């Protein structure tokens, strides 16, 4: 079943009787060549690229709940490639390029909208840092523009430019950044993988790994034992819990991050805006709600809900940046579990167990990375070598001292 404008018109004229479920609901087979643990964005993307780009077969995705029930279903949908460090920026720019062709690639409307992201700066030092970051982005093939105050004013006249403590001096703009429909991304990858023969197995929790002679043999699940030649784990906030079943401790702490959405409003914010003096960012969804967020709560948590002090902190940031937000009512808030790594950067690597691979440590930046993460993980699983843009995301970099610490705050996950 191919989606197209013509198809929508045809279905509209024939009572929408032709739409079918987007994927099968298969029983697990006794053995697969590849098992991906985790049916979220990264796991589904990995299965998709394994089957499509790398031409592999006999692939299954095992998901504890329903597809896309983790962080792909609860993020703030921003896509961007505005990183500084050489270990990161080429990877995120690769992801940005995959976003740009994603909907044609998997024939599904992921509502990728390149509406631009503007990082505001509030001091001369911050402007210098943004200039450096913009140059790093340009060197990696991304786009970046440094705006002065007038340039920002032309885009967003409603911002609080003359805030006594944090006046807005300018901003770093990436026009190709933007937002995407988060669930649509999961569904598009799931459908694309299913069409290429991947078994998407839901309500199937991995309860253990069968490891013999230092090599993976398969996984124990709530639906019985399933054999596998290679197992890739992409379970975000649950990484510590799952890898502990394989006897591994990770350089990761799980933390809760909250996000918020206001009541639906008329269009007022075209792109994504981030406050440079506190932690606050905002965009407006196509339904009209202001989608915004800020810092993690800062303590280990698996609760998928946070506490009020961070709500207050985020809203204070919003009020300092754009006082008009005080007139909007908050509709919903929720929390997700972040796999905060010790340097704030991800891990895509093999483990000490032969055939067991790990994709983790995305902190609160995993959504934008979904396509490249899946691509690079599939590359690693299929070829045994890291993808060219992901060579720095090694598990042993902490032991080697080769950290990728964008913020330079050290081994303190709640500061990243």
């Amino acid at each position: 079943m191919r989606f197209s404008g013509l198809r929508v018109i045809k279905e509209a004229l024939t009572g929408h009787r032709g739409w079918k479920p987007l994927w099968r609901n298969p029983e697990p087979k006794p053995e697969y060549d590849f098992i991906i643990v985790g049916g979220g964005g990264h796991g589904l993307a990995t299965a998709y690229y394994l089957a499509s780009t790398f031409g592999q077969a006999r692939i299954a995705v095992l998901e504890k709940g329903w597809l896309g029930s983790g962080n792909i279903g609860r993020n703030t949908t921003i896509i961007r490639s505005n990183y500084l460090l050489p270990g990161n920026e080429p990877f995120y720019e690769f992801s940005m390029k995959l976003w740009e062709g994603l909907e044609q690639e998997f024939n599904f409307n992921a509502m990728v909208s390149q509406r631009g992201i503007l990082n505001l700066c509030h001091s001369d030092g911050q402007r210098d840092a943004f200039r450096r970051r913009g140059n790093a982005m340009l060197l990696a093939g991304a786009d970046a523009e440094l705006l002065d105050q007038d340039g920002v004013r032309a885009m967003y006249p409603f911002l609080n430019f003359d805030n006594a403590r944090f006046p807005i001096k300018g901003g770093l703009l990436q026009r190709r950044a933007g937002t995407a429909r988060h669930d649509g991304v999961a569904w598009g990858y799931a459908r694309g993988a299913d069409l290429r023969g991947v078994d998407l197995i839901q309500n199937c929790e991995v309860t253990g790994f069968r490891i013999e002679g230092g090599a993976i043999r398969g996984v124990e699940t709530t639906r019985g034992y399933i054999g596998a030649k290679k197992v890739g784990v992409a379970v975000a906030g649950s990484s510590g819990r799952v890898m502990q079943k394989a006897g591994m401790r990770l350089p990761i702490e799980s933390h809760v991050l909250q996000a918020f959405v206001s009541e639906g409003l008329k269009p007022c914010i075209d792109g994504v805006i981030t406050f440079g003096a506190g932690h606050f960012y905002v965009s407006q969804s196509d339904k009209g709600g202001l989608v915004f967020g800020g810092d993690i709560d800062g303590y280990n948590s698996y609760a998928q809900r946070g506490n009020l002090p961070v709500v207050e902190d985020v809203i204070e940031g919003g009020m300092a940046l754009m006082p008009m937000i005080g007139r909007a009512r908050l509709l919903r808030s929720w929390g997700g579990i972040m796999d905060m790594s010790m340097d704030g950067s991800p891990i895509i690597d093999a483990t000490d167990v032969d055939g067991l691979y790990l994709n983790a440590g995305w902190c609160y930046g995993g959504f934008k990375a979904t396509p490249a993460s899946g691509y690079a993980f599939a590359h690693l699983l299929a070829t045994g070598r890291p993808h060219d843009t992901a060579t720095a995301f090694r598990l042993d970099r902490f032991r080697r001292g080769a950290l990728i610490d964008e913020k330079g705050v050290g081994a303190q996950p709640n500061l990243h």
Partner: protein
Amino acid sequence: MLIPHPLLGPRDAQEFTYLGDAALLDRPDGMAEGAEAAFFDYTYLRDNPAGLHRELWFHEQGDRSWLVVTRDTVTHEIVSAELASDIKRRGGA
């Protein structure tokens, strides 16, 4: 969250700064054999449990004591809080 401070009674968690797993109290001996591996483990690896977690909170906006708080990471329920100095004095971590 309210943290039951052993000296000051229930205090708002906002008065505290969070550091992490209380295993950090048990700093390896830098002069010992295998110190490099021990420090890698100490600095970077965490148990990260879902459930009861013993963790270090610093009462920065209060009496500036370090507490070891036992808290459930699934429910955020705080089970107990002790002075880290008491635990060290007893020779524990």
